Each structure stands twice: as structure tokens, then as C-alpha cells.
């Protein structure tokens, strides 16, 4: 009897957990589905349904402000991803391979941008740029916040994310492979190119995708460090809701969502356990 009882509990527990998983999934994704459906709404108002139409996609892409915001977002995302991937990987390698003065401090600080709230980081960066510009001012050129400062800020937080992801990969790294390469008289550079890099490539790619997604999504830091002509797409969307929401925003959100989901899925696929890599 008691055996049957536990089996029954186990079974119902399993069902409950399964139901819960589906419930959580619905909780997370139903709002997104609604958002996507309403992006095909023909009405002027976001939550008044008036029939199916793709007109808002056309209007969104015909709106020069949205297109310019999209352009800024892409420039910032791509440049910050490239730079932070290179720097982040270098930091991860340095922390993993070498013992040097201040390594411990660096080890602690590299996680800081992940831990501190966006708003703190945003204010810190704004104050930093303000003070730096004041200093540069005394030598002549007058600088202003703009696309460059947004990109620099994104690099600042993305380095940490890339470094963390690459380090996780390095933790599982089999050092004997490098030793073998060196035993076979490979130069350090060649060892790096032909052995180390291919092995940590999935980590680097995952870090880069994560950086790209974070950069495309960021609102707070971008809003603080943007200057004239540097409104990013998320900042534009966030500012627009004040004036009432049109399905145009749903259309842009859907486009952004599609991009983000693609990136996240790709990043997850790349982070798969090493069974997928030799």
C-alpha cells in the first residue's frame, strides 16, 4: 500500500511539475504573443482591435525617426560587440592563465558591471563623461555626448559579460592539449591560433551574442549617455509610450523581439555542453 502511495505521490508530483512548467511558460510568453498579434492590428490605437493588417510595419519602417534610431542601435550594438568581445576574451585569458599583481582585484572588479544596477552604472558613466569632457575642454575641443559615448558605455558593461562567459569555457579547458602542441614545437602564437582559439570559440561566440543582445536591449545606460542624434531604438520606444501607444510600437517591438530571440537561441545553442565539440 505504502509503496503504491509513494508511487502515486511521485506521479502526481511529476504531473504538477509538468503543469507548472507549462504554466510558467504561458505566463512568460502569452503577453508576448498578444503583443505580436496586436502588431498586426489595423486600428490607430494599440488595444482596440479593428482587423488584420501589416500597415504598422510599413509605417514603422517609413518613420525616419524610427529608422534613424534603429541605425544608431545597430551601429552601437555591432561596434560595442566587436570591441568588447576582443577585450573581454583577452581579460578572461589573462585572468585564467597568468598570476600578476592586482589579478585578484581585477578578478573581483570584472564582475562589477554585471552586479551593480543599470541606473548606478548610468549615472557613474554620465558623471565620468562630464568630468572627462571638462578636462578635455581645457585643451581645446568641446566634446558632447553622442553615439560614441553610448558605444563606449556599452563596451564598458559588455566586457564583463564576455569575460564571464569565456572564463566559464576556459574553466573546462584541457591544458594538456596546449602542452601537447608546445611539445610538437608549435610557437605560442600558433598554439593559440590552432588549439586554444578553436576550443574556446563557442564561448567567445556565445559571449559576443550575449553582448549584442544586451546592447540592443539597453535603455537606462543608453538614455543617460546619449547625446544629440544618438537616440537608440529602445530609448525611442520608451520615450514614445508617454504620448500614447500605437501599433507602430508593437511592430517595432516585434521586430526587436525577433532579433533578440534569434540571438538568445543562437547563444544557447553555442553554449551547449562540449559533447557537441571535439
Amino acid at each position: 500500500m505504502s509503496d503504491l502511495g509513494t508511487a502515486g505521490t511521485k506521479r502526481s508530483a511529476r504531473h504538477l511539475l509538468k503543469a507548472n512548467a507549462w504554466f510558467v511558460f504561458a505566463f512568460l510568453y502569452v503577453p508576448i504573443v498578444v503583443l505580436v498579434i496586436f502588431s498586426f492590428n489595423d486600428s490607430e490605437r494599440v488595444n482596440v482591435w479593428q482587423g488584420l493588417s501589416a500597415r504598422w510595419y510599413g509605417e514603422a519602417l517609413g518613420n525616419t525617426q524610427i529608422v534613424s534610431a534603429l541605425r544608431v542601435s545597430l551601429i552601437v550594438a555591432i561596434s560595442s560587440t566587436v570591441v568588447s568581445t576582443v577585450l573581454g576574451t583577452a581579460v578572461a585569458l589573462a585572468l585564467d592563465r597568468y598570476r600578476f599583481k592586482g589579478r585578484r582585484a581585477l578578478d573581483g572588479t570584472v564582475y562589477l558591471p554585471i552586479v551593480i544596477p543599470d541606473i548606478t552604472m548610468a549615472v557613474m558613466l554620465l558623471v565620468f563623461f562630464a568630468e572627462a569632457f571638462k578636462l578635455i575642454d581645457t585643451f581645446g575641443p568641446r566634446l558632447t555626448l553622442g553615439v560614441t559615448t553610448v558605444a563606449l558605455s556599452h563596451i564598458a558593461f559588455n566586457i564583463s559579460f564576455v569575460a564571464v562567459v569565456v572564463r566559464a569555457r576556459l574553466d573546462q579547458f584541457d591544458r594538456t592539449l596546449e602542452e601537447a602542441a608546445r611539445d610538437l614545437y608549435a610557437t605560442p602564437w600558433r598554439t593559440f591560433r590552432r588549439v586554444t582559439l578553436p576550443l574556446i570559440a563557442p564561448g567567445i561566440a556565445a559571449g559576443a551574442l550575449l553582448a549584442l543582445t544586451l546592447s540592443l536591449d539597453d535603455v537606462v545606460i543608453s538614455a543617460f549617455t546619449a547625446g544629440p542624434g544618438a537616440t537608440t531604438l529602445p530609448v525611442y520606444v520608451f520615450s514614445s509610450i508617454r504620448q500614447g501607444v500605437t501599433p507602430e510600437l508593437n511592430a517595432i517591438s516585434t521586430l526587436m523581439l525577433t532579433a533578440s530571440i534569434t540571438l538568445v537561441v543562437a547563444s544557447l545553442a553555442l553554449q551547449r555542453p562540449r559533447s557537441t565539440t571535439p
Partner: protein
Amino acid sequence: MTNPSQTTRRLRRSRWIALIAAAALVVAACGDGDSDEDAEPAATEAATAADDAPADDGGCAAGETDGDLAFYNWADYMDEELLLAFEEETGISVDYSVYESNEQMLTQVESGAAIYDLVVPSDYMVALMISEDLLRPLDFDALPNVVNIDDAWDNPPFDPEHRFHVAYQWGTTGIGMTYDVLDALGGESSWAVIFDPDTAALVPGSISLLDDAPEAVSAALKYLGYSITETIESGDEEAIREAGALLKATNERLLKYDSVTFGDDLVNGEVDVAHGWSGGFAQAFFETDAYETHVYTIPVEGGVRWVDTMAIPHNADNPCSAHAMINFLLDAENGAALTNYTYYGSPNEAATPFILDEILEDPGIYPPPDVYERLELIPQMGDLGLIVQDMLTEAKS
């Protein structure tokens, strides 16, 4: 994962993080302190910057430009055609960026790191920016079209000498409702429909209130019979606390606090009574043809009016271009085009013939004179601002 050396390492690491986070906070605090102390030097800097500005010695000529214009405005608050027309007329290009709140704009201008030529602060923000020396006095010689502005906008309390701003668009805050509710109230709108339990019981559906502390507290003050201006200018904390208590007592009757979709919610039937801004209702009514069933009203006790203005930050690089843009928007037809786009009231008297009839005839956008007299500007709150914010936070909790 539970290997001891890893645990200590993790512990050590978290200590490091804590230490560094603390250091970061200290640095941030110092940074803030610096910027406070810098307030005065910033003023002198503004003066030097003004001296450096090329065209400042003789002021700007009307229509003169001195470089591409960095224009910082609220989102969805400008007809793009106007920007294109300005670019064509002057040959300079407009670097247009948007913000979401007065405070966001203030932070950027205050930092001194973002250089904008033209910003659009609301009334109370103009006063605040003047007090912090963040605005540059306007050169009215370069603004011949300023005669188009209605005299009613001369020398407002937030800029008594009228040196720093030109009115951009204005609107009111009141109550949107269905005609059924208005009939139940006997045809006269009153804040009682929100704040008085017996009157609120007449509303068949739900009620929403703006998620904006100064607006919510002002509404409660109006219902209680206080003047917003007098209460705030005399620093009458007790009246504000009374309004806060009223908000708290009202909380259970509300469906929600909302500043974004109030117009849509009303048209959809999600709420029957909504506290909100005139333009938000007007847009929702126009776009769904809800004029037969819904109406925006200014309560008999009075409501709030506000005005957004154009102003030039102290560190603007191209003040002449900014003046050119202000003058361009003050043109009768351009002013009308702006209002025809935003559905907010235009301070531009000369623009009236060019504004769409449906906007001019809407008493929600252009209230008749007797209703207009019942409207008050919310003054700059200063230290009271924090208390006002607390009132809304407490009411919601």
C-alpha cells in the same frame, strides 16, 4: 560545486565585490558632491561659453544659423514635415533626439556633457532650470514671430520676466468619462466622481488616476477646495498631507494608476472614468470616433493646465540656429501644423485660422473662457516635491 576551496574563493570574491561596490558608491557620492559645488563655477562657465559663442557679441539676426541644430524634444511631439521644411529653408540639418521626462532632459543638460541647442521643458522645469543657471536668455530680436504668441502667455510665474522661454504647446488635466457617467452626475463634471465615495458609486465601471504624483495630489487638492498655487507657494504641508490621506482613502476604488493608456482604456470600456491629459483623450477619441459616447471634462472645482516651452541650454553650441528654429515654429502656418499633429493647444494666436476645425471646436483642447479660468499651473515644488511624491507612494501601498 561544494568543494571547500571553491567556496572560500567565492566568499573571498563576494567580499571583494562588496568592497569595490562600496568604493564605487563613495566615488559616485563624491561625484555628486562635486557637481553640487560646481553649480557656481558652472554659471561662470556658462558666461564664458556665452562669450566664446561666435555670434553672441551682436546677438543673432532673425533667421541666422550657426551650425547644425541639436534639438532635444519629447517623443512624438514634432511633425517630421516641419523638420524637413526647416532643413530646406535654412540649409542646416537637425540632429533630433527624444526624451521621456523633464527629469531625463534635466539630467543630461545638468551634466554639461551633452550639448543641445534647443530643449522643450515644461513650465515648472523652466523655473528649476533658470534657478540652476541652465538656460540662456533668449535674444528676442532674433524672434520677430514672437508677436504671434497670444498675450495670455506673457510673463508667466515660472519665468516672470519672460527672458528664457517661448511657449510651445499647452494642455490641461481633467477627467475623461462616458456620457452615461456625465448624465448620472447631472451634466456637471466634478472631482467628486473620483474622490467622494457616494458619487463614485454612481460610476458603473472602473476609475483610473494618473500615475504622476504632482497631478494626483493636485487633483485631490482641487477636490478639497485648495488652490494648487497657494498651497505650494505657501509651503502648506498640512494641505498636501490631507490630499495624500484622501488619495489613500480613494485607492481601493481605483482600477489602476496609469499615465500612458488612460485614453485607450476609456474608449475600450476598461474604465468609465479616467484622470488624464487633454491631448491623450483627444487622440484616443479622434482615432476611434468615440466622440458620441465619451467626453473630456474639466471639473467644476477646476483642473490643471500646463505649458511646454522652447528654451536654449546655457552651453548650446549653435544658439543662432536654435533661435532660427524657434522663430520658424512661431510662424502662423508652422505653429498650426504642429498643433494639427499633436492635438494639443497652440499658444500661437496667428495660427488659429490654419488649425483644423475639429481641434478648435473641441472644448477639451480649447476650453471656453469660463472653464479656462478654473485652471491652474502647478508651480515648481522645490522641497515639497519629495513630500508630494511620498503621498502617491503611500497611497499606492
